[in-house]
């Protein structure tokens, strides 16, 4: 009895980590863009194109790391589009983000049909070409750590490293300080000779790269192909996690673990024969997202200039 509780607990932690991972990457992307003052609700679309690029490259190239980086590049290109619209042309950032989302699924489907004989699903990547599982077989069978870590893909650890890296970048380096200053008060940054436009470009492109990684963490690790429903709202959940995490990498991490955990729980509960329909259970992550956003989030933590386009020669 103790034994099963123990291993069930480990199992839930394991699935939590696994399902949180794509959210963590994407959420970090949101942290970067919004701390520089650009709202990015295009994360979903960037994640989709990343998932597609990852699965496709994984299938054709056969190296998961090249595929992973390719996914980042694909996401980064979408980030560039968003940056051109929002930073150079001062477009409404929400509208541009929505367009990016449509463009994400649209282009992914189009290319999928082109490369995979008209199929909307990419072909499965053979197990050997998926992301490696670095700690597979390291811990004795059935041990607590074994249950948690045995099946975790490399993307999980890379995500945690990125949390540290981005935290360090934002709070301990001069470029991080400048990026945050641009998100808080771009005019002030401008008067100190900081290039607001360049920093916002960098942040939004990197945000796309991270969302691309997030998509690939789905299609190269958790599953092994791309299909149109693979990313269904994960980008938005990651966005919500960023908000719940008060626009900070460490906060976003915790929020992603919460949302990922509810997703993991949904999967875990799905294996039992409950009298509850599985559709209801799989709604769990979304319901938790809404409840959390309604209940706990104030606007106060957002960077002061988040969402406001910056133009030169405006009134000082």
């Amino acid at each position, binding site marked *: 009895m103790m034994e099963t509780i123990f291993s069930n607990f480990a199992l839930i932690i394991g699935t939590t980590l696994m399902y949180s991972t794509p959210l963590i990457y994407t959420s970090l992307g949101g942290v970067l863009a919004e701390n520089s003052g650009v709202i990015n609700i295009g994360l979903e679309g960037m994640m989709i194109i990343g998932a597609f690029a990852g699965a496709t490259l994984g299938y054709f190239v056969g190296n998961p790391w090249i595929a992973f980086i390719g996914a980042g590049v694909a996401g980064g290109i979408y980030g560039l589009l968003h940056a051109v619209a929002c930073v150079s042309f001062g477009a409404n950032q929400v509208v541009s983000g929505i367009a990016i989302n449509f463009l994400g699924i649209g282009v992914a489907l189009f290319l999928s049909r082109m490369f995979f004989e008209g199929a909307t699903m990419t072909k499965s990547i053979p197990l050997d070409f998926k992301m490696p599982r670095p700690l597979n077989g390291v811990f004795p069978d059935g041990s607590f750590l074994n249950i948690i870590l045995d099946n975790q893909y490399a993307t999980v650890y890379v995500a945690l490293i990125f949390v540290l890296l981005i935290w360090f970048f934002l709070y*301990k*380096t*001069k*470029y991080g*300080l*400048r990026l*945050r*200053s641009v998100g*808080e*008060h771009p*005019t*002030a*940054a*401008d*008067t*100190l*000779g*900081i290039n607001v436009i360049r920093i916002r470009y960098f942040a939004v492109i990197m945000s796309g790269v991270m969302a691309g990684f997030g998509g690939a963490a789905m299609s190269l690790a958790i599953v092994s192909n791309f299909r149109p429903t693979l990313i269904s709202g994960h980008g938005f959940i990651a966005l919500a996690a960023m908000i719940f995490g008060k626009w900070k990498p460490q906060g976003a991490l915790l929020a992603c673990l919460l949302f990922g955990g509810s997703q993991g729980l949904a999967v875990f509960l799905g294996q039992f024969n409950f009298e509850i329909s599985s559709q209801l259970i799989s709604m769990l992550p979304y319901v938790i997202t809404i409840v959390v956003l309604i209940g706990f989030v104030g606007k106060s933590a957002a960077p*002061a200039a988040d969402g406001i386009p910056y133009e030169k*020669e405006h*009134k*000082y």
Partner: protein
Amino acid sequence: MGYKDKAKSLTKVIEMKNITKKFGNFVANDSVNLDVFKGKVHALLGENGAGKSTLMNILYGLYSPTSGEILINGKKVDITNPNIAIEHGIGMVHQHFMLIKPFTVAQNIILGREPTSKFSVLNMKKAIKDVKEISERYGLYVDPNAKIEDISVSMQQRVEILKALYRGAEILILDEPTAVLTPQEIVELIQIIKNLTKEGKSIILISHKLKEIIAAADFCLIIRRGKHIDTVVVSETDEKGLASKMVGREVIFNVPKEDKKAGDEIFSIKDLVVKDNRGIVAVDNLNLSVKKGEILGLAGIDGNGQTELLEAITGLRKVESGEIKINGEDITNNTPFQIINKKISHIPEDRQKRGLILDFDISENMILENYHNYPFAKRGVLQYNNIKKYAKELINKFDVRPREESKLTGTLSGGNQQKVIIAREVTNDPDLLIAAQPTRGLDVGAIEFVHQSLIEQRNNDKAVFLISFELDEVMNVSDRIAVIYEGKIVGIVNAKEAKIEELGLMMAGGGSK
């Protein structure tokens, strides 16, 4: 000795020659010339919207001039961005502070020129040490670890000055630095300016307060509506001379007002208790009344419950206990809408936040309180023709500039924004007009106008309640003066018999009844 002779013996550090700046068709600077000399304070005087900030933003590289040239130490330079200005030793403290609120003092000062160790990693230890060093050197004490959002406005200004000095500024532009300071802090600032010039720094001081220019500046450039009017030696002129050059006509500092017997009491406050945002009692059993045909001035230092009192009267804040009456009717805890309908008008403390909707145009702002009434609306549909006609009338009557009812109020100068508010409030024909800090940040011409409007209300047998931190203003305009201290009225005197020392003492809590 005129300006030309004086200037000959001095070292020019900056020459701005024939600077013209156009925003679209609008000429903000029209062939302006400015010379700045080493170790001297050069004032820039002009009404709101005259183009002072524009000229300085050009010097600092934020705007590029439409024509004209700039010489620094005799060499022509193209200042296309602030980095170039900083390299040439120019520093600027903007009218609206350019500080990142959630950052610390030290972070704000080093931003853009951060001391780093390997891999661009911030070296905050060195940053704090550097900040301490310059702050001690110039006697500008700050706490490097405090967050900007937690420190006072005058501290924030020090941080701004330190920011410029940290970048090695030799020429320091101060854009209306005193607008946000208390009288005591202004004295301190003038001392700081003197210390800086002793160190050989040159200062450009923008202000429309004549007293300060006389107290602090050596020379003064006067611009009016973008045009270069004159450069004078400050010691050879006086307040009147400066004022008439600035406004282009004689200015009356003390608007004359005839004696007038006040009528019946029309507005009264009894035992009022109001709490502030933190839940602490801010207005503490306060009693007051205003009569028809009088101006009651409320003197007091900022933060003694004035804001809460004002918000309670206008329905913006809950009254804990006590009662507020107008024309015998109880309006305690009524909604702002109800209170407006009881003929109370309000010129709010913060004109940009509470007085106007900056993204609406002048005509829309003019009808904010009666948009739902005929002729502005018919069956719930706005009648823009009528609204525009009405706005045009008020714009002419109250001399709002520019004379375009479709101009967004956010683009107007402070004085003209205030005129829009006054036009709206006074035209409502209120029984009680409440004016809170009505001249804050305005130049002498606009101040004269505001005071005239208040006195006119009074002469029309209306009640006026003036709340101001400027003792001069309260003494000049009011008929009776009440002094507030820690949420209580600590004394009421007739303005004619009031002595500044007596009021000052009461404001500091040392007065008797």
